[in-house]
């Protein structure tokens, strides 16, 4: 279970608060969506969960399965099952995609006290998961995300997720830059990972994605706080009325 309590966050070295008391609980097995206007702090929340350094938590806590995430380095969080699918996946020149995936997977397996995968085992797994996401394995011989289209980058994030098998999946605007076919492939990939052992947080600006990844709950984040919580109908309502209500409210 993910428990976020009274989370206050600002950008390190700046005074402006971005998150001003976020409370959010996601039980295992549930998919929650966070929607909200631009600049409401959605991506900040995603980055803070993953452990990016540029932010400072001034108050509050984040517990994952009862453990304090804020005290952990990003790689320790990953070992505990946290995964962020980036809104803007990083390009890493010189590191072949397969090398990256294998290094990450084996690092996690080592921490989870599982044996490292041999090359044939690893390749079999990659081929299988990549095929489902319509990713050509040849593409993974190229440096990580370098020269990939927006859609290819997003699919490659979901492939990483499918391989690393996290238990807390945070998807930050995974739908942005995707055409309808790519959106369906990505959503299928995400849905395949839904399980009673896994919690998911889907951050999006638009309701469209939620037609494919149907959430158990929808939260509206604006002005650094959760302003409203509802079921999937809330997303439909927001699509009609927009965020005007929330941008005026606070």
């Amino acid at each position, binding site marked *: 279970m993910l428990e976020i309590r009274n989370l206050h966050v600002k950008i390190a070295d700046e005074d402006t608060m971005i998150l001003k008391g976020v409370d959010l609980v996601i039980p295992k097995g549930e998919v929650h969506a966070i929607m909200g206007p631009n600049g409401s702090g959605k991506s900040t929340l995603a980055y803070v969960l*993953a452990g*990016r350094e540029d932010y400072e938590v001034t108050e509050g806590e984040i517990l994952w399965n009862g453990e304090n995430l804020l005290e952990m380095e990003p790689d320790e969080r990953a070992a505990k099952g946290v*995964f962020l699918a980036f809104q803007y996946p990083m390009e*890493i020149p*010189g590191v072949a995609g397969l090398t990256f995936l294998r290094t*990450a997977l084996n690092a996690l397996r080592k921490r989870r006290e599982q044996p490292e995968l041999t090359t044939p085992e690893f390749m079999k797994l990659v081929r299988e998961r990549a095929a489902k996401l319509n990713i050509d394995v040849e593409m993974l011989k190229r440096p990580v995300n370098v020269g990939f289209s927006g859609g290819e980058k997003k699919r490659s994030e979901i492939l990483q997720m499918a391989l690393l098998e996290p238990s807390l999946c945070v998807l930050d605007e995974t739908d942005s830059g995707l055409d309808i076919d790519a959106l369906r492939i990505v959503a299928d990939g995400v849905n395949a990972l839904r399980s009673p052992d896994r919690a998911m947080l889907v951050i999006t600006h638009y309701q469209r994605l939620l037609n494919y990844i149907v959430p158990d709950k929808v939260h509206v984040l604006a002005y650094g706080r959760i302003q409203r919580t509802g079921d999937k109908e809330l997303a439909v309502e927001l699509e009609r009325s927009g965020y005007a209500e929330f941008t005026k409210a606070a």
Partner: protein
Amino acid sequence: MNVGLMKTKAEQAFTESFDAVAAKLPGGEAVRELRRRAIGTFAALGLPHRRVEEWKYTDLRSVLKEAFAPAVGKAATPSEADLNAALGPLAALDVYRVVVIDGAFNAGLSTAQLPEGLAVKPLSAALAESPEAGESIVGMKRDQDPIEALNSAFATDGAVVRVADGAELDKPLLLVFARASAERKSITTRNVVSIGKGAKVTLVEAFVPLAGSADEDQHNAATEIVVGEGAAVTHVKAIVENGKAVHLGSATAEIGADATYRAFQLTAGPGLARNQIFVKFTGEGGKLDCSGSFLAANNEHIDTTLVVDHAVPHCESRELYKGVLDGRGRGIFQGKVIVQPGAQKTDGKQMAQALMLSPDAEFDSKPELEIYADDVICGHGSTAAEIDPEHIFYCKSRGIPEAEARALLIEAFVGEAMEKVEDEPVREALMETARVWLNKRTAS
């Protein structure tokens, strides 16, 4: 040249030791005369210093405090196992070997049976057999280069390699220059390589210390190579050292018409290294790819100085250098590209990049383009940067611990230059050599 400059201790030592060993150096009277001329040139020029533009960042006059006694005559014979240990990842390569220990050819450790089309003779033997060939073997190609002058004066051994027209070697030729002496020595070697028309060859030079050898030594290593028309040559040089040795390397290459010359230098950890490379296109349609990785930590200093002479039209040159600099390590890249009048349709591109792992590391990069023709494409670039923290975060967010993430990213950086080495086993062995150095660098 050096009017008013006092002779340094090292300069004096070089000239004095020449008088002491001249009679023991290989070659008859004609060769001795060439050597005398060369030491005279050195005496007149002195060690280069920072006011000589080509040596702006490597002030040998102040850095080279002394000259060690020249290594002349017989040398120890290490076991093959010891030699392989010194070669590290390069030892596993399936190659034809020519081994030189402390500047003396070692027949026992060298491949006895060479394939048809490849002839290798020790330089010492070549000088003894045909005195009239002395000029082409130890004669100076550039008359104002003090390092080459020292090489001409003192060269004891090396490989005289001849590859026949049309020959395609099934395995690379590995020239091993290992040092064994527990006493500090000044070693001088020279290779003279001639590649026939249309031949295909991979040549690897490796400079390594054997276990038990002195911490320091000075190695003056020259290689002259003539690439025949339409030939394709890969020429790799690996210097893998322990932080104190001095390596002064000069390579001279002439690229014939429609020939391809791919040179790559991996320089890991000598205390002071200068790789000076002079390339001249002698026929149209020639292609040059000259690249390298330089790895320096502590107080190590690695200088790569290129001079590419586009003397004829329609030639292409590419240079990519990538360095990793830690501690007070210093990397220097000087790349001069000359496009002679009439050398139209020249296409030259150059890039030098350093990854700075420490605030005390230094990278000096100096491109020099001298273009005397008007229909050419020439470009150059240079960067010095730290590891991108965003990249580290991305790796960590996937569960890769920081140290491993940094190693992965550093390796990737070096790997981009290594990609230039087309021969896969050679490339992998070089990469593994770099990996070993990168893992070790924090230890010292």
